[in-house]
């Protein structure tokens, strides 16, 4: 019991923070309810995938600066391919784009492993390359999206046994997010690859000596990051119906949520749930500040302060518990 509390304490804390923020939102604006929660979730969706991508890479001891550019390039690819095409064609586009994300992520990993250039430099370079590629594919926002894809994230999950007042709290976007993250993360976490990703992030030398194929594991970690990035790109196309070649503010947000979510920069520690809840917290905090009619520039300052304060607080708690 104590162990569960210790391991999951961070996540519990984030959940409490989320609930407090939600209560704050309702206090400020009593009408804040299910519908607003739904739009929060759809707004969070691309952020959440960016965070998932960053989380895997950071746990493996790396960092991926190309996350947002990866989302842009996969988003415009999907939008360009689906523009004017049939509904069925989208069935091919989705796996193609996911594969593309996986391959581009793997490319990041291969460049890092083979050239031995630091990860931060390699992914910065691929950031520029992918940005350029996105603009080559679609010089301006455009393209299209299959209707069935779009319908996956709009509205709520119809659960016949429950009254509408309850199902209103289950937006489809949330279901999609949970299903997609679980499909990748749970098998990964239980596999030897998952262990190896934690191992190389925790102590690369010890992992090597334990027989972990370090280079291969690192490449796969970046590839899985790319896969999540592609999901993020697809979710962008799904929610807007078009592709936008200029990357959104997903890179910094992903790093912030990873740190806030209890994943240690440097690797080896943390999970996926923490960062995902953290990204919800960060977005909701922004909503609350907007509801308070605070200047958006001040909002950014407050967000930065929250980040430092929470991480400092966490380190403080960890230090105290180690001493006792």
């Amino acid at each position, binding site marked *: 019991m104590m162990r569960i509390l210790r391991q999951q304490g961070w996540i519990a804390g984030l959940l409490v923070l989320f609930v407090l923020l939600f209560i704050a939102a309702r206090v400020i604006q009593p009408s804040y309810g299910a519908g607003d929660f739904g739009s929060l979730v759809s707004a969070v969706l691309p952020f959440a995938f960016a965070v998932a991508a960053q989380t895997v890479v950071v746990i493996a001891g790396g960092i991926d600066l190309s996350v947002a550019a990866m989302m842009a390039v996969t988003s415009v690819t999907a939008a360009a391919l689906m523009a004017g095409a049939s509904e069925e064609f989208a069935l091919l586009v989705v796996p193609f784009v996911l594969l593309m994300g996986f391959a581009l992520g793997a490319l990041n990993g291969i460049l890092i492993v083979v050239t031995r250039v630091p990860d931060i430099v390699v992914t910065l370079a691929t950031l520029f390359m992918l940005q350029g590629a996105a603009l080559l594919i679609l010089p301006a926002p455009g393209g299209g999206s299959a209707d069935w894809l779009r319908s996956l994230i709009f509205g709520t999950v119809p659960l016949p046994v429950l009254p509408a007042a309850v199902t209103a709290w289950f937006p489809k976007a949330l279901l999609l997010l949970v299903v997609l993250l679980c499909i990748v993360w749970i098998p990964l976490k239980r596999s*030897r690859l998952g*262990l190896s990703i*934690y191992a190389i992030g925790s102590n690369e030398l010890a992992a090597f000596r*334990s*027989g*972990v*194929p370090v280079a291969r594991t690192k490449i796969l970690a970046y590839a899985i990051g790319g896969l999540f990035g592609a999901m993020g790109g697809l979710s962008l196309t799904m929610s807007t119906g078009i592709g936008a070649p200029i990357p959104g503010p997903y890179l910094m947000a992903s790093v912030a949520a990873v740190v806030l979510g209890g994943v240690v920069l440097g690797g080896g520690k943390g999970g996926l749930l923490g960062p995902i809840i953290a990204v919800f917290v960060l977005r909701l905090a922004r909503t609350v500040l907007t509801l308070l009619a605070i200047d958006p520039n001040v909002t950014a300052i407050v967000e930065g302060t929250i980040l430092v304060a929470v991480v400092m607080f966490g380190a403080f708690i960890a230090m105290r518990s180690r001493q006792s």
Partner: protein
Amino acid sequence: MATEPLLDATGVAKRYGAVAALKNASLTLRPGEVHALMGANGAGKSTLVKILTGAIPANAGRILVRGQERDIRSPAKARQAGLVPVYQEPSLIPDLDVLSNLRLTQTPVEPFRHWIKELGVPDLDLRDLARDVPLAIQRVLDLARALAVEPDVMLLDEMTAALPANLAERVLDVVKRQSQTGRSVIFISHRFVEIAALCDRATVLRDGATVGVVDIEPGIEEKIVELMLGAKVEKQRVAQKKATEGAAPVDGSTRIAVRNLKVGTKLQDVSFDLKDGEVAGVVALEGQGQDELFAALAGSIRPDGGTIEVDGKAVRFTHPVDAIEKGIAYVPGDRSEALAMQQSVRENIALPFSAAFRNWGPIAKRREDATVQSAIERLQIDTRAQREVQRLSGGNQQKVTIARWIAADARTLLCFDPTRGIDVGTKQEIYKLLRQLAGQGKSVLFYTSELEEVQLVCDRAIVIFGGKVVDVLPVEIADEPALTRAAYGLPRDAKADVGILAEPHAAPEAQP
């Protein structure tokens, strides 16, 4: 035909650029034997172990496992071939729990549980993070993990070094029994008592080559020491005379008094005095606590126990600046630790003493220049490459690290292997310089891994083994064989068999 060897390595060589870490090593392992691998520091033991366990590839040589050539070019493949190492540093992943660590190496859990019980660690929760398990226990878990896969050959590198006595005894017992099942163990240890109690044969390395394979029998220590040193024993006689001239009789006042110093688990209990006008040598095998001793004296780590007195007053250093204020300066063997490599010679020399006479504000340029110039001249630093210290030769870099403290007028130098990897000529100059400093009443604590230096520079040699001072040799008798013997914890006059083989477990604790 006799029983086929389990492992047969011949002509193994490894080069790092121009440096040959291993020239021609061979090792034959019979089934069911515990085989000691021995050699002085830098003889190539750890390189050979790394090659045999797939951590690094060899440049040449043939390695047969059960008579067949096997691919052992990665740790995973070496493991499959039946070669499982237990390294000196724990190789558990700190952020995974013990169970996940087992899964990572595909170690069966039940045999693991059995072995940790055998090894005397009954109450272990496999869900604990490896990080939270004490270091000594981590080593035992490493061993249990190796035992659980029932490897043909287990390589134990300094297995017992960090273990408390009761655990070490259990470990040795288990290893001994392991060999009775027909499996073999390669055992690396600096402790003759353990080797005597445990091993059947020993392979001795010197300068990257196998120089002998001996059966372990009473009285074999001398033979092994001889093999480890080789021709150096003869060479030593000449150097000895030269040293005694330089060594001035010491009757200065006590500069630093160290009493019962304890740091972490490595440095157990060290006491000695360093006097003004003296160069005291410190001799130890790798990892006997000398790093911690120097770090504590230099103020970069805080001791856990004992006292340090400087000029008769007890001090507690919390930062290197405290030590520097007392005139104690640390000269590391690794120059990159001490120098700002991209800065000029002048800036590097000026850094400590400029910091000393003023904290902030403009630097007194003229005064600085004069001091730097005199230090450069005094040490004859080749300043053609003034701009960047990194362009100087290793020897000249080392001179800069010493020059800066002379310029800062430090009264005590803590030199940690200062002649590592520099040319012979510069070494001589550094010896001369240290003697001169002593002549001026300064004191030097001088750790060296090259034992012949002791008689060239020092007034006496403090020998540390297992974190304790085991002997203090006057310079006249501190020749290489005597130092080696002492560094391995053997008694001073162990020419004949003095019966350490008879009481294997008692000896290490009995050392003063």
